[in-house]
């Protein structure tokens, strides 16, 4: 038995061995046959292939004459990728190694890496234009420099400083959230992307196609093979309709007008309805010049402005961060498309067109303006209660009679009352102004293509209902939701709940001035092949961005003539509201309309719309709108701003400075 025992144990060992081998076979079968190998095969390929993208050189932005507004500068830089996950220890060694390599102190390197101006996951430059030996050293010792790379970075250059900042927009490095939004378009963290303005509008054209390298790498990240190398396609140039000279004058004029306004006295009502007076604040404003014949934007200025180069370089002064603070004056806001204002008297041509569309009003109708008009139990007065006597449409526009338009508004409300109360139908003639306003493009974005364009607001009963929807007091809600005669009268003079953007206003005047054609305003006229080297080479058009005529407003030539005559009178007549600002231009080529909108408790908004020439002929017809927030009377601040811009449009590259007026006491 003793002898047999070992033999038995040998057998037992044999069984154990067999079991172990069976386990190996089963596991092998399970891994290789039973579980899906496709996913694993894919994972292994992913493991092996690295895709490296290098952004293309971004396209330039040119003005209407091909002058460079935004350019590029390509620089080599040693960068640190903040999105790469490395340990503190690795970071410390990298910092020390870089310091030694670059001849700086570790403190300097840390400061560059932690530069607070850069986004959290940005790729931050440590040095620009490093010596080639440094670049090679880092590339050859990549494993010693995690998160560090030598990259070509393009810097956006703005040869004209802040000029056109709002139109051009700015570029920024893509952060993780933005990256999610543009997923699938081949962006990677740290790439530049247009964040506003034309940079954003034409991102896909300007960006070009990045160089894509599919690299096969081993586990240490060493490149073993370049599987694919698709060269980059440089971004296209974008040619704007903006004219550099007019843009410059528009910005200068706006600034001069606002500076001038700061010396002027403003009179306004506070929240309690008490009259206040003091220096005008004039904290923000805008100027837009539109070609009435094709909707091209020739200039677009907004104040306060910002420096796009600073934003592209990481926003050292925190402009972006503070952009939402009241104190900043909202410099990022492009007030031409994002600012909404009550248009005041500049609205009167629209009211007139509405009244005439309702068949209630003709240009010849005369109202007797005694300075005030009582509607219900409320008195509606001209500015300063000044009586204008007998006024027809022309004169009502020239002297800016509010009473005339209060009358129109009240009469239209009568139609409204009849339609809703007596007939129980949808208001038609009663909403004549609203309908005309919508026809002329108010209440909806113009579609120019800039992000964040405002719609403005055309008030009516429905709007009032919406505003009062939340009022728990049912009776008060019913009362407040009614469209009242006073609402209609206020709407007729461009006050109350009405809101428009300066661009909407310019576009509506363009339709009136040009006699009907309706355009979507445009900022760019062509996409061009990027020009390399030879600046004299003829431009090569990739795509023309034609004027977008989207319809026609039916405007009776006689009605139009009456309106234009009234606007001309405002500029040239002795008692025209804007006469004072147009010395030397009262030659019949310039017409315009002042506007002063109350917005208690703030100071009045100063508006002016200029049209030149008055009648469309061979020459382009320009609409110039100026809006200055808390600037006081339209005639005092905005009219002289527009005047100076018109000087430039008429060919004076360096017109005399804006002469802010103080004479106006009426709208």
């Amino acid at each position, binding site marked *: 038995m*003793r002898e*047999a*025992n*070992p*033999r*038995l*144990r*040998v*057998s037992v*060992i*044999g069984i154990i*061995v067999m079991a*172990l*081998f069976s*386990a*190996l*076979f089963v*596991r*092998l*079968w399970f*891994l*290789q*046959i039973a*579980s*899906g*190998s496709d996913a*694993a*095969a894919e*994972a*292994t*390929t992913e*493991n*092996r292939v690295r895709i490296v993208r290098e952004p293309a050189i971004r396209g330039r932005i040119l003005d209407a004459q091909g002058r460079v507004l935004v350019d590029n500068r390509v620089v080599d830089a040693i960068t640190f990728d903040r999105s790469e996950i490395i340990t503190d220890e690795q970071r410390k060694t990298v910092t020390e190694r870089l310091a030694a390599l670059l001849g700086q102190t570790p403190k300097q390197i840390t400061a560059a890496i932690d530069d607070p101006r850069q986004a959290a996951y940005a790729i931050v430059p440590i040095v620009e234009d490093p010596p080639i030996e440094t670049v090679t050293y880092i590339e050859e010792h990549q494993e010693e420099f995690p998160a560090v790379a030598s990259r070509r970075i393009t810097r956006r250059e703005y040869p004209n400083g802040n000029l056109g900042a709002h139109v051009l927009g700015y570029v920024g490095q893509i952060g993780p959230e933005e990256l999610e939004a543009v997923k699938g378009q081949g962006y990677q963290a740290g790439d530049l992307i247009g964040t506003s303005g034309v940079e954003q509008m034409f991102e896909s054209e300007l960006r070009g196609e990045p160089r894509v390298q599919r690299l*096969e*790498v*081993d*586990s*240490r990240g*060493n490149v*073993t093979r370049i599987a694919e190398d698709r060269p980059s396609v440089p971004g296209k140039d974008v040619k704007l309709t903006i004219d550099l000279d007019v843009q410059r004058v528009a910005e200068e004029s706006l600034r001069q007008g606002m500076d001038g306004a700061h010396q002027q006295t403003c009179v306004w009502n506070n929240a309690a309805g008490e009259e206040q007076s003091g220096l005008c604040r004039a904290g923000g404003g805008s100027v837009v010049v539109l070609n009435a014949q094709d909707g091209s934007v020739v200039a677009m200025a907004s104040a306060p402005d910002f420096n796009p180069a600073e934003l592209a370089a990481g926003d050292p002064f925190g402009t972006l961060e503070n952009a939402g603070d009241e104190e900043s004056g909202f410099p990022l806001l492009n007030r031409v498309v994002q600012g909404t204002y009550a248009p005041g008297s500049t609205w009167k041509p629209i009211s007139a067109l509405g009244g005439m569309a309702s068949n209630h009003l003709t240009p010849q109708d005369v109202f007797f303006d005694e300075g005030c008009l009582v509607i219900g139990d409320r008195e509606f007065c001209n500015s300063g209660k000044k009586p204008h006597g007998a006024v027809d449409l022309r004169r009502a526009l020239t002297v800016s009679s509010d009473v005339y338009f209060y009358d129109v508004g009240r009469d239209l409300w009568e139609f409204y009352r009849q339609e809703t109360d007596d007939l129980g139908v949808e208001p038609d003639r009663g909403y004549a102004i609203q309908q005309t306003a919508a026809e002329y493009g108010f209440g909806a974005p113009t579609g120019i293509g800039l992000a964040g364009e405002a719609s403005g607001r055309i008030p009516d009963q429905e709007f009032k209902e919406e505003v009062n929807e939340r009022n728990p007091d049912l009776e008060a809600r019913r009362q407040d939701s009614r469209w009242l005669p006073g609402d209609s009268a206020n709407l007729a003079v461009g006050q109350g709940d009405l809101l428009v953007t300066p661009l909407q206003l310019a576009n509506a005047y363009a339709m009136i001035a040009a006699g009907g054609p309706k355009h979507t305003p445009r900022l760019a006229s062509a996409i061009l092949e990027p020009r390399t080297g030879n600046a004299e080479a003829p431009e090569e058009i990739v795509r023309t961005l034609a004027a977008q005529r989207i319809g026609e407003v039916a405007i009776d030539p006689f009605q139009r003539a009456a309106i234009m005559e009234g606007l001309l009178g405002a500029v040239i007549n002795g008692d025209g509201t804007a006469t004072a600002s147009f010395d030397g231009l009262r030659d019949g080529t310039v017409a315009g309309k002042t506007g002063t909108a109350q917005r208690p408790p703030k100071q009045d908004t100063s508006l002016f719309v200029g049209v030149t020439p008055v009648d469309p002929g061979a020459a382009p017809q320009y609409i110039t709108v100026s809006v200055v927030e808390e600037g006081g009377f339209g005639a005092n601040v905005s009219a002289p701003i527009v005047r100076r811009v018109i000087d430039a449009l008429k060919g004076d590259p360096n017109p005399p400075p804006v002469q802010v007026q103080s004479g106006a006491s009426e709208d």
Partner: protein
Amino acid sequence: MASLARSPLRSAPSLSSRRARLEGSPAAHLDPILIGAVLAICALSLLMIYSSTRESLEFQGVDPLYFVKRQLLYIGIGVAVMIGVMAVDYRKLRDFSVLAYGGVVLSLLLVLSPLGSDARGSQAWFELPGGFQLQPSELAKFGIIIAVAGFCNEHRGEMTPRELVLTIGLAAVPLGLVALQPDLGTGMVLALIVVALLAVAGVPGRQLAVLGLLAVTAAFAVVNLGLLADYQEDRLTSVLDGGADPQGSGYNQEQSELALESGGFSGQGLYEGPQTQGGFVPEQHTDFIFTTIGEELGFVGAGALLGLFALVVWRTWRTAALARDFFGMLVCIGVLAMLTFQIFENIGMTMGIMPVTGIPLPFMSYGGSSTIAAFACIGLVANVYMRRFVG
């Protein structure tokens, strides 16, 4: 005797053929299956070493056959050593068991002295001229088999508790020295050889159970009392967590399993395995070579290799069963334990069912000492097999 009766060679030999075998030279009774299977594994090894090192060697501008040529040299030396071991009757080797034991202990002591050199955190190598290295712990496997088999042979039958403790004490010396390097994997192989030999040598079941209990307690203590370096503990425990730490100790296994899965039935093709060619599986020409064959040649290749190993192990077991005497059987059981444990641990590790330890796959993994030691051990088996009739 039941197991022996099943053997065809034993069941129906005529007297005359028996006599013929007794009279013939032992060389006439070689086991061609055993030797053939081993050489086939070596051939596969050369192919897979080439596939897994070719690209990175080329990339470094070195001869892509560098590792293949060296491994070929090791196989050559291994075959020579095997023939040498076979030439001497194993019963004479038994007389040298004390010498073998002494040699093992001495070399293990020397390697811990400044004479040895450390690589990758263990003091386990002698640097030899020509860029070669000798790893005495590999050769210790061979020595331990002879020494413990010889000792057990002398005390066959009833092993008293005193003798048992003595045996374990004898084995503990080289084991401890290996653990000091530290080379946990080899230590485990050595321990297993000893346990297998004791089991067959007739240690009563109760004592064996106590031994097993002690071993488990010891292992538990080693892991939990901080006797292991962190990396060792990590590697041993990472198999339990699966892919808990893909860049850490679980990384090897995760990449390895991924590679095996992607191999599928017929593999990605020789030289075409992305994991292998990209170097994502670490130690792929040494400890993780099974991954290479699994990825590139698929289930067909890996299964065939496993089959060849099964063949080698079967022939070894069969030799143990057929052995002329107790010592021969013990020697074969020692080799069997060594082979089985190394194969199971190594392949199991690549497939995620065993913890990661640095145990080479016999005849497959690149490496001189382990290849030569494995050949020496197969030499022992072949020796026993061809002298199974010698009186």
